[in-house]
């Protein structure tokens, strides 16, 4: 029964990877978990969402200015992209790169359009990861599954 849950969890993760939401960095983070720190990845991701909310707001406000300050926008996005990279958020990272490219070419419309995408991805990933971690908590540490009934 527990093995089934584990398989479900593994499938969930595989799907996140197949759909391009996550990359290798997420696996790297999972490998840092152990019995003493079983929820490290969830903690990092939670911290990420809390911390980056501020950056999202800053970018939103900066995009309302006229004229746009592309250097500032690029700076905010650089920070946001960095954190996104650190949690293995692949799609998000790519959107951030796109945004930065528009900053470099001074394409305001491109920036605004891309940022809508960024926010969508950001929200979608949050839901998926919340679901994943919730499930992971239910499944429990790997050792449990190995214990014979």
């Amino acid at each position, binding site marked *: 029964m527990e093995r089934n849950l584990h398989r479900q969890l593994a499938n969930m993760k595989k799907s996140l990877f197949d759909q391009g939401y996550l990359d290798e960095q997420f696996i790297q*983070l999972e490998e840092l978990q152990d019995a003493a720190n079983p929820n490290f990845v969830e903690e990092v991701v939670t911290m990420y969402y809390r911390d980056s909310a501020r950056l999202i707001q800053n970018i939103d406000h900066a995009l309302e200015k006229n004229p746009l300050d592309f250097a500032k926008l690029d700076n905010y996005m650089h920070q946001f992209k960095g954190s996104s990279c*650190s949690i293995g958020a692949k799609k998000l990272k790519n959107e951030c790169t796109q945004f930065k490219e528009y900053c470099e070419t001074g394409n305001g419309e491109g920036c605004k359009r891309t940022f809508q995408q960024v926010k969508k991805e950001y929200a979608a990933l949050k839901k998926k990861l919340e679901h994943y971690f919730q499930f992971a908590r239910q499944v429990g540490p790997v050792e449990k599954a190995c214990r014979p009934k």
Partner: protein
Amino acid sequence: MGSDCSSVVAEELHVLAVDDSLVDRKVIERLLKISSCKVTAVESGRRALQYLGLDGEKSSVGFDGLKVNLIMTDYSMPGMTGYELLKKIKSSSNLREIPVVIMSSEKVLARIDRCLEEGAQEFLVKPVNLSDVKRLRDIILQGYENDEDKGYQKRKLQDLSPTSSLARDLTPLKSASASASAQQSCLKRPRL
């Protein structure tokens, strides 16, 4: 003889991690702890210099009395960049011996060159992973061992001879360059 190694205070490397990103600090802290290093994580170059006591020209002993054996700093930080922090450390007679590693999400060759020229031990591309950290740890530990073998009481300020394993590691990209011997030697427990 070599008993007064003022660098010898603990069995674990003490690493000072500098990064303005909360998430990155949490990750690097975990990476270092897993690699059996003591970690002090600060959010800016200025805080790092304060911790190192640079303003008072004291020795590189932080508030908790532990000498810093390695500094890992992000490159792009508001206020003082990692590069500027590197320069300040290398121009301090007390601190310049401490290896400084620069971390950056951007692999800009000119940036890498500049950092290495200024004396950075290595330039790591983010996200930094466990094998990066372990490899670094081994290199630093090997450096201490070499010092002991050669009977140095304390690493000399001007000891930048190419034979020293603390000589600049001129492989800025992520390819693993650490020798196998460095990995084996970490099984010993040098006094730090």
